[in-house]
């Protein structure tokens, strides 16, 4: 994954924490506090930080079941749309259900192509 200094997926920018960062950067740009180039650098830092933290700090496991509505594999990115999904935590304390969930997944193998 950390093949080069800059090859990290931009995938996580769609997450809630990435969206919050993007919105905040947008606000700062519209207020003329920073320029867009700097915002891009911050987002690149975010790509690297979230990848490293998820890889190194998170140890929890999860399993889920459901029915697959649509699937797509393009440019080494899997996209699934699931229906009636049940997520189970590893400790089994509680399960979370959702009627629709979308999964966007990039390959974990270091092919170097950033999504």
């Amino acid at each position: 994954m950390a093949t080069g200094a800059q090859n990290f997926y931009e995938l996580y920018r769609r997450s809630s924490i990435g969206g919050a960062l993007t919105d905040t950067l947008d606000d700062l740009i519209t207020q003329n506090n920073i320029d867009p180039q700097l915002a891009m650098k911050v987002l690149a830092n975010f790509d690297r930080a979230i990848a490293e933290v998820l890889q190194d700090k998170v140890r929890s496991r999860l399993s889920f079941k459901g029915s697959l509505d649509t699937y797509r594999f393009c440019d080494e990115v899997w996209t699934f749309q699931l229906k009636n999904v049940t997520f189970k935590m590893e400790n089994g304390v509680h399960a979370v259900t959702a009627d629709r969930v979308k999964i966007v997944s990039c390959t974990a193998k270091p092919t170097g192509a950033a999504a």
Partner: protein
Amino acid sequence: MSNSQVGNVYQQIINDVITASRVDFEEGGIDEAVLEQLKKGWQKKLSQQQLAVFPWDPKPDPPAPVTSAPAPQQTPGPSAPLPTANGNGYAQPLPPVPQAVPMPMPGGQLTGDTRIKAEPTVKIEPGLEGNQMPQGIPQGDPNNIAQQRVIAQLQNQYGDRAAASINKLREQPGAGVAQPQNQQRMVNPSMPQAYPGQYQNNPQQQYRPNMPHNPAAQQQRIPMPNGQRPPNSQVDGAGEDDSHVGILIQQSRNGQATELGQVEIDSMLHAQIAARARAMEGGGLMLPLRRASKGKAVSYHKSDPNAGPSRFDGPDEYVKGEDDDEEDEDAINSDLDDPDDNVEENEDDEEGGQIMLCMYDKVQRVKNKWKCVLKDGVLNVNGKDYVFHKATGEYEW
């Protein structure tokens, strides 16, 4: 996968990003306070979504009202009592009253000042006409000061070589004064009785408020002296402003003597600027049809009462464009893809909240049974965030 872990994980991500971005901010010459602003804003946005319990939540909660409090303080702005009165809450209705009252007041005070200033000049130079008197006060001083400064600087820099240009500068004030005089004579016919009367005889002017035009005359007189000053102290052709003011007044006089207040003038200017901006954008071609039609409707409302100075780009065409909206089916289009695509996009949008972003190690399929091994994921379900290191999924198609 856990939700309790999310807070710490996110905080670590935020700290990492802020630390890594500090160098970039320094290289870009951006103040550290902006970086702090970024961090606070980021955390605040996450807290608002209530995705999880965040470690910073107890802290930002007290600061949050503090940051929101300055906003209402800034809007009232100049009035000093407001911030203290804000705490009471019921004191807020009061400020508008002083705000509304002072608006006419400064006008009266200003005119009072001009009256007072007009007196000494009458005494000093009784031979001149009253019209020129008020000019002499604002004109002479700034002009001379600026001119002396320029001359001194030229002498310092170039010495004797600057003599020619200094001579020219000394000749210019005569021309500089002459121009505004001419302009004022052009303007004065449009402003009949009130203007000379106010400056010639002060006692008379005090008895004149009976005139119906008086409020308008006072309003107009305020911009006029201000407008007269720039051309004298500036050499870069600010005289156009004068002519604009004069035109506005003339129109008002000729057309039923309607008085153009500040608001009306502003709205006229706004309509003109908007029309020019649209003209620069290719007459609205670059805008979505809805917005183009909206903007035009607005300009219609504004241009009609003002007898159309802003109406020079033929907005009629856009109205036709609106009507053509439904006939566009004949245009070059494929109706095969549109409805389906829209449905899919809508589905995608709705699921924006229910999404899992991760890496995959393995994705296998046997007939209609799928198995996948995922890792390093972020999951948002039912308004909550989860993170996982490893996930296995089984589903049927």
